[in-house]
């Protein structure tokens, strides 16, 4: 991997402190409430908990003026890496705040200061059992019911269920497989599926993440599959963006396409190849997963130099969140009879995180839960009865927050609604 923290010094130094990383895009600013996009700054209030503050700390560490401490690590890691800061900054500037935050975590690990205890525990589990939970690796594929028709090898699509759908929420994997069946997809389960490695990459444990990625990519290539499909946004972005990043290559050079269930199914529905006759009568708010929305654009490897006025040679293509997977889930939900889609105030590239990512669910569960509760309040604010997302981690986080807060709001994964909608009404 070429990008260490020093490589990103320019990006950290040239932050101007405009707080585009914190405020919702001013064009979309909704007023005095729901006006911010950074959960950690909202929660902890000190500037060290926003991208611009973390960048200053990173510079001070590089300059030898700031030593590692529990508070520094707290500020670095109490962040979902949701990328809202990145999309906000890049509305106006050509800087890479999210890459700085990721590199800062790698620097913490390289310097022996990180990761944090829960992150280490999860890394050990992945090392030993190839999954986030430390569960029996042999049980990984047990979510698959007997009535699902799929090949066991040689299919064009490899379905990557991910740890959460394999172990914690098998209903999502089952629903996804049924949707693929109904669409006539030629698919197989990913052979020898290991954890995608997101919990490793996101916490700065790059070496181990690379080993996991190497294995997973080799397995796909060997299987002959041309499409790696998942219904987990976290796995999706890890495969599509972080794997090529780890190996200094571009997404386009991976040799196979990474696709999300919604990305795959939406054109089939809009073209009429798949119909969704079953109704779902409810006011539904769609929660844009960070990793499917603003963070999902392909990775384009860049190597070059920076000259006068910071001009790059060759020019670089910036990933600004413009072309995230926003529309496809909405098209699918819009095609379900009886479903009334209501938009939350902060949507698409401005979406408020579910709280779960960046290692926060494990190391900062109270912060993760608080973040999810803020999102639940936003859904209630627009009168939603149901919230739908496209990631098992989002569903888990948001459903947990609704339960704990005793809020009357049902939370689904989109695969669960789709499989219901595929069934003809009785």
């Amino acid at each position, binding site marked *: 991997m070429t990008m260490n923290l020093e490589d990103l010094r320019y990006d950290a130094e040239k932050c101007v402190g405009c707080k585009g990383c914190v405020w919702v895009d001013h064009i979309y600013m909704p007023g005095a409430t729901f006006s911010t996009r950074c959960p950690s700054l909202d929660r902890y209030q000190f500037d060290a908990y926003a991208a611009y503050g973390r960048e200053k700390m990173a510079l001070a560490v590089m300059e030898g003026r700031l030593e590692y401490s529990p*508070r520094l690590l707290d500020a670095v890691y109490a962040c979902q890496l949701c990328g809202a800061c990145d999309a906000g900054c890049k509305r106006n*500037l050509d800087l890479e705040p999210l890459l700085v935050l990721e590199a800062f975590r790698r620097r913490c690990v390289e310097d022996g200061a990180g990761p944090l205890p829960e992150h280490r525990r999860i890394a050990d589990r992945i090392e030993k059992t190839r999954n986030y939970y430390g569960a029996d690796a042999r049980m990984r594929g047990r979510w698959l019911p007997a009535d699902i028709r799929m090949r066991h090898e040689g299919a064009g699509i490899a379905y990557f269920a991910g740890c959460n759908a394999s172990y914690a929420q098998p209903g999502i994997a089952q629903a996804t497989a049924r949707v693929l069946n109904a669409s006539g997809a030629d698919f197989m389960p990913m052979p020898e599926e290991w954890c995608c490695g997101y919990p490793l990459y996101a916490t700065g444990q790059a070496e181990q993440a690379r080993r996991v990625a190497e294995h997973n990519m080799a397995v796909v290539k060997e299987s002959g599959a041309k499409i790696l499909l998942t219904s987990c946004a976290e796995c999706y972005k890890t495969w599509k963006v972080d794997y090529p990043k780890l190996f200094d290559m571009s997404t386009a050079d991976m040799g196979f396409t990474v696709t999300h269930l919604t990305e795959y199914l939406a054109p089939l529905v809009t073209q009429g190849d798949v119909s969704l006759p079953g109704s779902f009568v409810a006011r539904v708010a769609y929660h844009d997963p960070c990793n499917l929305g603003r963070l999902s654009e392909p990775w384009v490897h860049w190597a070059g130099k920076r000259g006068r*006025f*910071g001009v790059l040679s060759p020019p670089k293509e910036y990933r600004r969140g413009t072309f995230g997977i926003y529309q496809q889930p909405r098209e699918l939900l819009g095609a379900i009879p009886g479903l009334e889609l209501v938009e939350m105030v902060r949507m698409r590239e401005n979406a408020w995180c579910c709280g779960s990512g960046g290692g926060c669910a494990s190391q900062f569960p109270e912060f993760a839960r608080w973040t999810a509760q803020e999102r639940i309040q936003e859904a209630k604010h627009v009168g939603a009865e149901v919230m739908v997302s496209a990631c098992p981690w989002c569903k888990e986080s948001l459903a947990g927050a609704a339960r704990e807060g005793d809020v009357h709001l049902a939370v689904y994964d989109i695969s669960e609604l789709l499989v219901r909608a595929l069934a003809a009404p009785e």
Partner: protein
Amino acid sequence: MAIPREAYRAIEAIVGAGFISEDPAICEAYCSGRMGYVKDTAYEKDFLGVPDCVVLPGSTEEVQGIVRVACQYKIPFVPASSFWIIHCAAKVPGSMILDLKRMNHFEIDSDGMYAVVGPGIIYSQLQEEAMKRGLYTTVPGGGSQAAVIPNMLHWGLSPLNYRTGWAARRILGTEWVTPRGELVRLGSLALQADPFWGEGPGPDLRGLLRGWAGWFGSLGIVTKMAVKLLPFQPERLVPTGISPNTALELPTSRVRWYNYALPSRQALIKAMYEIGQAGICAGVTKVPIMWRYIAKARTREQFWEFWSQPGKEDEVARTNILRILIIGYTSEGQLAYEDRVLADIMSELGGELRPTRHSDQSWIKNADAVTMWFLTGAFISVEVTVDSIACADKTRTKLTELKRSFTPPLMEDYGDMGWLQVSEFGHNGYVEFLTYFDPDEKDLDKIDEWSFIAAPKEDVRWGTYSGFMICQSPLHLTGPAYGPNCHLWMLKMKEAFDPDHLSNPPVPENIDDYIERSERLRPLRDW
């Protein structure tokens, strides 16, 4: 150097343990420079530092308590909301930052047409809440992320000030915690709990609060302000697009932009006068040519591809485009009438209507000030003239000539004369002279000389009034030239209210102090 333990414990008792910290990591995130306007100058690199303590008050009472403790223990304090300007930083040892972001009180009186805001409220929040109710304010050129209170006290300049007037004229009832921790209520708040009006009994203290183009937190802290809102038109401005291509779609029967190309600079100036005298329009502005290329460019590299093409000098010299906003506040008929009057004026002056997008990216609700850093990574305005139109026009000519001797290291702009606009129906002309440079430039000394000495001297030479008289000019250079003793009165006021110089020291003499301490700039001091 930590603040005294007793002081720390006293402040902790006021705000709670969760809202005060002296942890080095927390304090580092408030380190000077690396934030906001005037960053990347040598002033920022040499002069500023990391605070010893950061406090986040949640109320006026907490602010008073903190300030009283600071006075008791002689702790310099720096109050700031958005930290969008370089003054919001520790400039002397032992400083304490008061981060006011938690004070985001907001209420709005639609009938009385005013909003009451705390220091944590920014302009885009206020504008959206106002527009929901058929009202509006002006978002300053400094950016929609600027906090309302400090910006209203300083400048608040926006093209829409053309009709709404200076921000200072729209300050109503206000609460002010003095540098000694006393609470002063201004305007109608002095008599009752309703802040609806700015003038109260006795002399109007709003002038004291504003000082000479702002105190930048050196005369205490304003903890609440009512701001006048004005009637807008009723059609919604719809946000569209996905970042970075977001904009407000304008209801063109009520809100329209016009780009008129005038045949000469003189015609453009004349148009400014005529439009003002006709009493029409909502905004009249001439933007730097390069901003049009910023709007077209997807990346910095693409901007430089455009800007490096031959013929730019000629293009700059012959381009006189006046950008005009008309708002049919009362009706579609009003817009139609003003459109006709504008067309008449332009016809007489030889103006040609050019294609204009009917969307707003950066004037009504947003203001993309941060895009100024897009070109080169660093930017500084050396002038925000608020004077007559004629004086503003003269100022930009003189600064353009002077700038040649500072280019390089300043970016080549082919003689572009800056951003010129009209305020208050032609009673004011405003010019902002923006310059861009490489923040990694070896010779930042020249940038500092340009910003802090050469441009202010040019103001003095030509008698131009610039809103940067405080934050970018040596007070003892510009002061004697204007008044000639207004700077002395200002320092007397500072002495009266803050005899221990604890409120954001050494403002308002910080530039003087910097020049005195700078080995490179001190020899240039000839006043």
